[in-house]
């Protein structure tokens, strides 16, 4: 299990690190790049003393600050991958060095095993940077104790341990445990109680006099189940293993360590075996669903709406939030009513709009619907509430800036821009917004903001956050030429198979300036007309194309031919009619 040979093959020591480093970067960058996108978009790191100060209000805040700094560097996913793998290699290296420092022997299996487990957890997109950083720092400090064996240094550590707790919060318990075992092993019965007394006194003093946090938070922060991706059953055993590792290092299993394969000792090969096992384990961890979703989200944030649509057409997804963003892209490009059924939709409308929810991704994304249809105040509210609940993110802040610019609240927009300017990677974006400050005409003529400003409700009404549909009715009533709202309303009516409702809106569609009835709407109107559901309204310009009528007759004919077997009918119609309203009506 371990080696006592002083002249261990140097290449065999370095090679697994190189292999892990290269394969780790390759894997993280090429297969799980969405992790970096998600995490980077979840925080807005600011290069100011105040921002650091905010994080020093409670024990563990400093570690979170460091984690956020690392996360902001995920702006470049390759750099993110390099940082993560470097940290993991650092952890392995420190474990090896600690083992050597304690026993004089070189260890291979357990250090790499820990590294492999931590890498495995890292493949969960919610596993945050501060977790590995916390472990890395504690191991680095512990390694220093084992190297510098001076009594004074140990005393300083014992007395200053509260500072480590203040900086690293609950992650310092790892060091506390390691250090305690170390002192027990050394039979140092003076430092150990003093270490606990110092720590206990500081904790008590901090709890009573310094920190406005709950006792539970003072004990646990910054550890949370969510921030390790819910992988408690893996994370805790890994941490416990690290704690007891110094004890394991003491055990010398000569028989196992002397096993060899030719000139190579088996223990020296175990890191390679573990890395191969890791590869086998993490390949199924590539989350295609999330990868797809985050790619769509990335394109959406970059306002590459055509690419969003193209990508979703190429790789269809049943994820509701993906469909929600895709529908927004369709709306922004004017295709919601003619390409709506080319993509999966849910009859309850959750692919169209989200109901108010104070927590989670819904709050983060839901406001984009209101922004799209011109309900600027409501979009601002969703972004603001998200900022209050979860802190600033690059996209939330940009939404706050855009909506305040549209409302001509330039002072607030300026304030938000000043915050964006304090970030590392969004300063150019802030500079672009800055050019619009106090310039109404620049906003009116802006290709994106100008359109949204023109859509603002003409008459005021109270928003019903739990009822986006009623809001649509209100805004159409306030401005019947708001084609974004109108198309959302039509999309909803199509989902409800409400042909009468759609036909009733045709005069408004005409009034809004449509020259041609959009494809999916035309399909509804054709069904309505040919199936003689009711009276057609009088239209001046809009007319129904004969080819759509012919297509409906063709659809109807094939359906009639297969009506005894619905599945057979579906198969027969799928190729030519899957993106039509008719197909949705009959097979949903």
């Amino acid at each position: 299990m371990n080696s006592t040979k002083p002249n261990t093959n140097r290449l065999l020591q370095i090679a697994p690190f190189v292999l892990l480093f290269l394969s780790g970067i390759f894997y993280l960058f090429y297969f799980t790049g969405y992790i970096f996108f998600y995490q980077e978009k979840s925080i807005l790191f600011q290069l100011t003393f105040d921002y650091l100060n905010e994080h020093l209000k409670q024990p563990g805040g400093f570690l979170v600050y460091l984690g956020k700094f690392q996360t902001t560097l995920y702006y470049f996913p390759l750099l993110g991958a390099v940082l993560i793998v470097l940290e993991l290699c650092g952890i392995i290296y420190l474990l090896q060095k600690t083992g050597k420092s304690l026993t004089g022997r070189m260890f291979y299996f357990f250090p790499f095993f820990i590294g492999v487990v931590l890498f495995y957890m890292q493949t969960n997109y919610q596993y945050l940077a501060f977790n590995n950083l916390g472990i890395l720092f504690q191991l680095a400090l512990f390694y220093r104790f084992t190297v510098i064996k001076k009594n004074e240094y140990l005393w300083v550590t014992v007395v200053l341990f509260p500072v480590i707790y203040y900086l690293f919060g609950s992650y310092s318990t790892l060091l506390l445990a390691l250090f305690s075992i170390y002192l027990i092993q050394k039979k140092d019965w003076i430092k150990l109680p003093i270490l606990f007394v110092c720590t206990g006194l500081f904790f008590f003093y901090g709890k009573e006099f310094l920190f406005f946090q709950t006792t539970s938070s003072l004990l646990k922060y910054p550890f949370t189940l969510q921030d390790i991706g819910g992988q408690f059953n893996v994370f805790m055993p890994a941490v416990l293993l690290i704690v007891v590792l110094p004890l394991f290092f003491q055990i010398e299993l000569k028989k196992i360590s002397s096993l060899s394969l030719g000139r190579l000792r088996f223990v020296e090969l175990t890191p390679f075996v573990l890395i191969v096992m890791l590869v086998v384990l993490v390949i199924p961890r590539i989350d295609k669903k999330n990868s797809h979703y985050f790619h769509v989200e990335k394109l959406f944030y970059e306002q590459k709406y055509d690419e969003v649509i193209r990508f979703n057409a190429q790789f269809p997804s049943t994820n509701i939030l993906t469909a929600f963003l895709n529908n927004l892209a369709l709306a922004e490009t004017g295709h919601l009513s003619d390409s709506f059924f080319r993509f999966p939709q849910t009859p309850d409308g959750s692919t169209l709009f989200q109901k108010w929810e104070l927590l989670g991704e819904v709050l983060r994304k839901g406001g984009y619907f209101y922004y799209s249809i011109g309900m600027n105040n409501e979009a601002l509210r969703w972004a603001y509430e998200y900022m209050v609940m979860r802190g600033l993110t690059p996209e939330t802040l940009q939404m706050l800036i855009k909506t305040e610019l549209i409302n001509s609240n330039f002072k607030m927009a300026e304030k938000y821009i000043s915050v964006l300017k304090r970030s590392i990677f969004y300063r150019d974006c802030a500079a672009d917004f800055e050019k619009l400050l106090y310039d109404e005409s620049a906003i009116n003529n802006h290709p994106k903001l100008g359109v949204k400003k023109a859509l603002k409700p003409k008459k005021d009404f109270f928003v019903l956050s739990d009822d986006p549909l009623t809001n649509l009715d209100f805004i159409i009533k306030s401005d019947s030429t708001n084609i974004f709202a109108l198309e959302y309303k039509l999309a909803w009516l199509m989902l409800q198979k409400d042909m009468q409702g759609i036909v009733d809106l045709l005069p408004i569609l005409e009034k809004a300036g449509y020259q041609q009835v959009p494809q999916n709407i035309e399909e509804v109107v054709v069904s309505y007309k040919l199936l003689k559901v009711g009276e057609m309204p009088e239209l001046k310009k809009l007319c129904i194309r004969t080819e759509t009528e012919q297509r409906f007759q063709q659809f109807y004919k094939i359906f009639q031919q297969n009506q005894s077997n619905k599945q057979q009918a579906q198969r027969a119609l799928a190729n030519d009619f899957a993106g039509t309203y008719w197909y949705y009506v009959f097979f949903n």
Partner: protein
Amino acid sequence: MRMRNGFISIILLVILAACTDVPDGEISIAGRPAKIYPDYSNLTIPINIAPLNFQVEEKGEAFYVKIKDEKGNELTVSSNNGVFQFSEKKWKQLLNKNVGSDITYGIFVKVNGKWNAYTTFSNRVAEAKVDPYLYYRLLYPGYESWTEISIVKRSMESFAEKSVVENNVVGQNCVNCHAFNNQDADNFMFHMRGSLGGTYFVKDGDLKKFNLKTKEMKNGAVYPRWHPSGNFVAFSSNKVVQQFHSSEEKKIEVSDLNSSLVLYDVNKNEIMQIPIDQDKQFMDTYPEWSPDGEYLYFCRAKQIGTEYDYRDTKYNLCRVAFNTANRTFGKSELIFDAEAVGKSVSFPRVSPEGNSLVFTLHNYGCFSIWHKEADLYSVDLNDFSVDECNVNSDFTESYHSWSSNGRWLVFSSKRGDGLTARPYISYIDTNGKATKPFVLPQENPRFYNEFLKTFNIPEFANANVDFIPGKIRKAANQKAIQAQWTEN
């Protein structure tokens, strides 16, 4: 060795002197005052105020400020970015030497190697001190969510700021409505909403949690005001609803659906309805006691029906006599008929001398903080004449509080950005006239341009309230003491 050290010191001094750019040579006259932020020009300031740090918002490569008094004392500061942060010690010395007189600011800006002198301005140093502390709640001026809310104590004499209560100490319960009696630490209270909710009183030096809501009350106790005796607290009891505008500049509409006044007897732990015109249908809110405790002022509107237009709810200013001995109230009097002028009143606050009352006037309703048009007005309590205070802006002026000597008024104003409220301070002369207000000074003069939270309910106080987290946690985890309902 000694000679070498001396030589190094001289070189350092020369370098330092070279860095300190002071106006010299030919100085051009700009012919106008320099633009400074915050605007601290032509003010009356308290002798014990912290340094009024500011930034000169003119373009230049070097900046210089000379503050001098009539006796020739000077305070000079150089800056290479226009930010001026004065030494607290020197600032205090200068103010102390100029009680009742003016200090004059000369601002110089170097552009293209040439100094420009801007028109000077003066500030008068008032004899009257401001209370040493300002308490306020810091929170995001959001809509319905909260994460971090704190009640903060800020020294008026320095930039020291300390949390008194933070909601995170009890797991993000909402902390609100703090109130002192006569700026006194012994009579202090605040509400907490959420799982550990209750009304927290400082009692016998200890913090205790009470549940003031009894089964007889339709709604909980909300806006508090201490009776000067410290024996009673009058509360409004409100049912509030908030709605969100789709297009108005004002994004949020907060209204009372019903409200009434209740009186809490601190010593007996009893709560009772304040019986004013009980046979009529009114909504009464925002209680305020006269300094002698003989009158209770409040805002009153007609009770709204099930179908109502929020813009029709107008609150008038009323008062009712109070008999401390037997806890009885007289008949209500109308003090200011705001409805008659199409307006609505909130936050009546009587000056400590009792001769003046300042209130917020706005178009309708009683949540003035969301009303851009809200302004401060004062009532002369001798003849009930009403005047606009000379402190208003185009933006919201709302919650206000008197200093204990009645010479200073602090109020929330959103004039900075239209969304976040900042505490502005104005000197009120013996005739009740307000002077130009100034924003609470900060060490970093750019602070308000970057700070996203709002200053809510600013209250002057002499009291140095200092709760430790453990004390709050302990009080919060105790079972609330239930107040008893009484008819009288």
